[in-house]
């Protein structure tokens, strides 16, 4: 049965791909003409997005329908019927909504003067500073001072009362890019609170050090006078109104629910929040069973959070029953290389850049080329390649495509045509020649590139794709909320789970008194597929995707994939603010527990960022929201209790802004202190320098609550030691994911090792809700691996000629993944771990290592062809 994904932005694309990897047929519906959504508008994101667009288009299990809208939704879980504009109907077992957001349009307010040529929205500004803009990212002449105004259409009851979550960071990224390309420009940022977390915090600190001026003030309007731009703002430090002349203004626009979301909610009868977002539980479940939401439809989120939700939604919607991947035999091509060349003409447009006739003639003259065919579109590729192979070609070269985008697709096609998938090479005569050089030069270069590709493909030998057997069982490390939720999700698809917990009891940081935790423990313990091991210390984990083994004391557990959910510890505030000596001083976590029975205090003071944002540790993300909710809970029980929250910034992202608003209206008092003037606590009195008043305030609290941050270090550093392969942590001790790499940044739950995933506080500080979504997402990634009995390895991996190995262990030391081991005094590559980077091959003192697809012979052949020494 099919799953229908509505919305072709990055969330929808990633959801569809996740479904397809589980063997679920998917229909992806987009109302626009092309896929990509708003991510395609962000210059820095294009290179990450493009390969995904190709992947989704080429996926045989995904049908993409663009330019249509959904007009009707009937039925219920397992049997929905969607009627599209144009009349087509689709039957779907589940529906995933990924209809994204609408950027706020500030032109509805004349006071920001969007009509002025130098007033930009942040999305417009992306284009201005993009290297692909007409000026190559240089600002128009005369712009020397530029002001960024935050929260335009966010945290504003007249437009959108919520925080849009992403603007603080995208502004910082824009400034970084802007400064790189225009180093002399002066930059001012007008903000209310800076809401970023983790590593992002450092980006902002760095910008401040580099001279970007952050001014804490809401700018109500932009004044244009004779075309000049001025903003007025309140200097809270000096307590006076100031004005600043600017040459350009960038409005950081917020994210609003999109119109189609509302329409779809009506069609399907989904509950909405008062702000117009889809109401969800578990992060992705809507009020209608069988309909899930991901990305910005439930709340404004960052791309990385959106794709986590996409993975989670896809996992919940998956119809398991994936056929095991078929493995073709390794067929050695017979006889001399006979090369079939395909020229992809890009619907005939390539001919206007280069002389195709000349290219064709030159290609036919090359030794070994038996046929040359032109193909106008990607859809024709399959048939042409099949006919080339049928007519005797045993190697294929495709000219006019890009390795980066099309290599996997072309290999799949070649494989379906009956050749080894590595007997094909691409000559990128479009991006690397036709589009960048004048016609005659481009023609000449194209011929060269084709010659080089042919030279390479002549040397290519078929590579064996290892079929790695998969142990269809998962290992989940950490029995907190995230670990338990992940285990349950995996088990719900019939896969067994080992759930390992170090402590004697399940529950993790929150403890079993928490309602959600208690419920999860009950479910986990009654689930027959989950084998819980408490008090278990892992000694060693080795192996590779599909085949991990984990040693605990004398027991050896086999698993095909691993979820790391080891969480974090609370920072211990021992010695700070008399904690431990003064019974009146407690932590926020202790307060949460005490609130269950009720507290007796006339005045409560809370100090934020104890052990966070202190230079060593970053923002822990969750403490502000905890503090504000606890403050609300206190006020609810007894409105007369005075509650003070002493903070640096209040970071109630996204929908949690509602809590902040409520707290203020209920009389919770927020006092902001400067980083270099933290509050003091002496003789029962808290003294704080309030930046708004510009004066010291003294409070005598009955309870002083310390909002302590998270510290993942001790747990994860310990864990890192048990892995036989490379396992990386960032400098705070969170598990490093692939998020910093453009191509794989779209898999934020993946660690640097295939088959090992991470969720919850071990990855980054997370609220319970977020941790649950991440857990389901990570479980989804696991199930994508464990869906079949066998998994395909990579073909382009390093291979050691063992007779040549001199056992110097250089490769063992250098491998970034610890994928080489010594067996009987000879190096051996573990195929499931090797990613084929080739660092070992080019360093091996004995020249004993070659990387498939990039062997010395292949590279030298290309050089010889290019430099004309054949």
């Amino acid at each position, binding site marked *: 049965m099919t799953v229908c994904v509505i919305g072709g932005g990055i969330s929808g694309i990633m959801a569809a791909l996740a479904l397809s990897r589980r063997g679920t047929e998917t229909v992806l519906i987009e109302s626009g003409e092309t896929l990509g959504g708003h991510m395609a508008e962000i210059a820095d994101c294009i290179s990450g997005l493009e390969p995904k667009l190709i992947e989704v288009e080429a996926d045989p299990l995904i049908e993409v329908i663009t330019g249509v809208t959904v007009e009707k939704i009937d039925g219920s879980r397992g049997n929905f019927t969607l009627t599209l504009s144009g009349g087509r109907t689709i039957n779907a077992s589940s529906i995933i909504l990924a209809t994204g957001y609408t950027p706020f349009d500030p032109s509805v307010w004349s006071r920001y003067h969007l009509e002025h040529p130098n007033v930009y929205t942040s999305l417009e500004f992306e284009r201005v500073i993009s290297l692909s803009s007409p000026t190559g990212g240089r600002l128009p002449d005369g712009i020397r001072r530029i002001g960024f105004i935050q929260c335009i259409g966010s945290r504003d009851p007249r437009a959108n009362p919520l925080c849009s979550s992403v603007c603080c960071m995208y502004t910082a990224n824009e400034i970084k890019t802007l400064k790189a390309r225009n180093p002399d420009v002066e930059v001012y940022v007008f903000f209310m609170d800076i809401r970023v977390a983790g590593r992002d915090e450092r980006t902002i600190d760095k910008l401040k050090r580099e001279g970007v001026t952050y001014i804490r003030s809401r700018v109500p309007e932009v004044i244009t006078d004779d075309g000049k731009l001025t903003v007025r703002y309140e200097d809270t430090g000096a307590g006076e109104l100031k004005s600043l002349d600017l040459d350009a203004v960038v409005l950081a626009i917020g994210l609003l629910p999109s119109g189609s979301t509302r329409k779809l909610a009506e069609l399907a009868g989904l509950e909405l929040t008062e702000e117009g977002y889809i109401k969800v539980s578990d992060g992705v479940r809507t009020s209608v069973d069988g309909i899930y939401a991901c990305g910005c439809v439930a709340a404004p989120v960052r791309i990385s959070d959106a794709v986590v939700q996409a993975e989670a939604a896809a996992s919940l919607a998956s119809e398991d029953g994936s056929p095991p991947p078929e493995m073709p035999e390794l067929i050695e091509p017979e006889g001399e290389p006979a090369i079939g060349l395909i020229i992809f003409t890009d619907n005939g447009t390539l001919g206007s850049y280069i002389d195709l006739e000349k290219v064709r003639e030159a290609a036919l003259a090359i030794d070994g080329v038996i046929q040359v065919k032109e193909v106008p579109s990607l859809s024709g590729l399959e048939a042409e390649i099949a006919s080339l192979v049928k007519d005797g070609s045993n190697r294929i070269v495709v000219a006019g495509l890009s390795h980066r985008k099309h290599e996997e697709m072309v290999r799949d096609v070649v494989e379906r045509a009956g050749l080894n998938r590595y007997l094909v090479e691409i000559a990128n005569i479009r991006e690397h020649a036709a589009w960048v050089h004048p016609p005659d030069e481009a023609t000449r270069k194209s011929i060269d590139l084709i010659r080089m590709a042919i030279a390479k493909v002549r040397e290519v030998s078929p590579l064996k794709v290892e079929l790695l057997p998969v142990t269809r069982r998962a290992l989940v490390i950490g029995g907190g909320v995230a670990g338990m939720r992940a285990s349950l999700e995996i088990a719900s698809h019939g896969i067994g789970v080992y759930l390992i917990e170090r402590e004697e009891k399940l529950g993790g940081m929150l403890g079993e008194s928490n309602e959600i935790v208690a419920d999860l423990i009950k479910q986990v313990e009654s689930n027959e597929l989950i084998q819980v091991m408490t008090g278990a210390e892992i000694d060693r984990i080795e192996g590779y995707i599909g085949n991990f083994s984990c040693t605990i004391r004398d027991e050896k557990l086999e698993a095909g994939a691993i979820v790391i959910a080891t969480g974090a510890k609370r920072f211990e505030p021992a010695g700070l603010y008399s904690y431990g000596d003064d019974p009146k001083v407690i932590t926020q976590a202790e307060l949460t527990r005490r609130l269950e029975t009720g507290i007796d205090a006339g005045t409560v003071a809370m100090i934020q960022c104890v052990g966070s944002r202190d230079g060593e540790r970053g923002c822990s993300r969750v403490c502000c929201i905890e503090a504000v909710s606890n403050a609300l809970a206190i006020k609810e029980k007894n409105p007369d209790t005075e509650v003070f929250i002493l903070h640096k910034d209040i970071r109630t992202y996204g929908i949690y802004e509602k809590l902040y608003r409520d707290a203020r209206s209920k009389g919770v008092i927020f006092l902001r202190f400067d980083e270099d003037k933290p509050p003091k606590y002496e003789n029962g009195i808290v003294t704080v320098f309030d930046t708004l008043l510009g004066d010291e305030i003294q409070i005598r609290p009955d309870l002083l609550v310390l909002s302590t941050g998270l510290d993942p270090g001790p747990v994860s550093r310990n864990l890192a030691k048990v892995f036989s392969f490379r396992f990386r942590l960032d400098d705070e001790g969170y598990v490093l994911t692939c998020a910093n790499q453009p191509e794989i940044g779209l898999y934020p739950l993946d660690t640097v090792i295939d088959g090992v995933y991470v969720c919850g506080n071990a990855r980054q500080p997370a609220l319970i809700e977020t941790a649950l979504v991440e857990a389901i997402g990570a479980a989804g990634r696991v199930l994508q691996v464990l869906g079949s009995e066998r998994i395909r390895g990579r073909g382009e991996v390093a291979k050691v000629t063992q007779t*040549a190995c*001199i056992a*110097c262990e*250089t490769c063992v*030391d*250098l491998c970034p993944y610890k994928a080489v081991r010594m067996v009987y005094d000879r190096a051996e590559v573990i195929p499931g771990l090797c990613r084929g980077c080739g660092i070992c091959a080019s360093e091996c003192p*004995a020249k004993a290592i070659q990387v498939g697809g990039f062997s010395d012979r292949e590279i030298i052949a290309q050089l010889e062809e290019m430099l004309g020494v054949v």
Partner: protein
Amino acid sequence: MIITKEKPLEEIYGYISDCKNVLFVGCDGCTQPPRGLKEAETLAKLVEMKAKMEGKEIRCRFTTVVKQCCETSVGNLRTEMEGCDAMVSLACGVGVQIMNKVYPEVCTYPAQDTKFIGAEEIRQGPMYEMCLACGECILHETGGICPVTRCAKGLLNGPCGGCVDGKCELPMEVNGELVKNDCAWYLIYHRLKELGRLDLFRKYRPPKKRSLAMNPRRL
């Protein structure tokens, strides 16, 4: 292991610039990094190219042996070295000498400066001298840290008065920079303390028998 450092390319080229046919011989043995086939090939290519640049032609071939300090192993090169008028050895000083001994008819030149017996902390990181091969090991008394090698003064009953904050008073030049080494005896003291064997620190060690380190030694 034996630590060697490549000689400057100019210098190696200088030895053989008048030759016509040179064999570059790597050694897979105990040097770190191993100066095996890959390095021999690279060096051969560099020399060949430099010759070409000067309008000369030197035929440069390359090979490697398992260990150049072994006469049998070096003996296997007989056919390969036919016709060459010089050889360049990438091995330590021992290898160069054995090559010259086994093939007295051509001269074998060194491509490496043999530095010391030592180790590296991290791969491709700095190398540290660890052993002087004095022939009379006392590591069992000094917590596994060799004062003969690692004390600048080779004191057997240290530390001297020149130990400041655990560093030696004698700075050493490393890559043009003055670096202060750890005081070996400071390290020994702390290590022995850790081991609970400070009694060893009190023990007097008489001077070494110089005869054991008289060159050349043999066993």
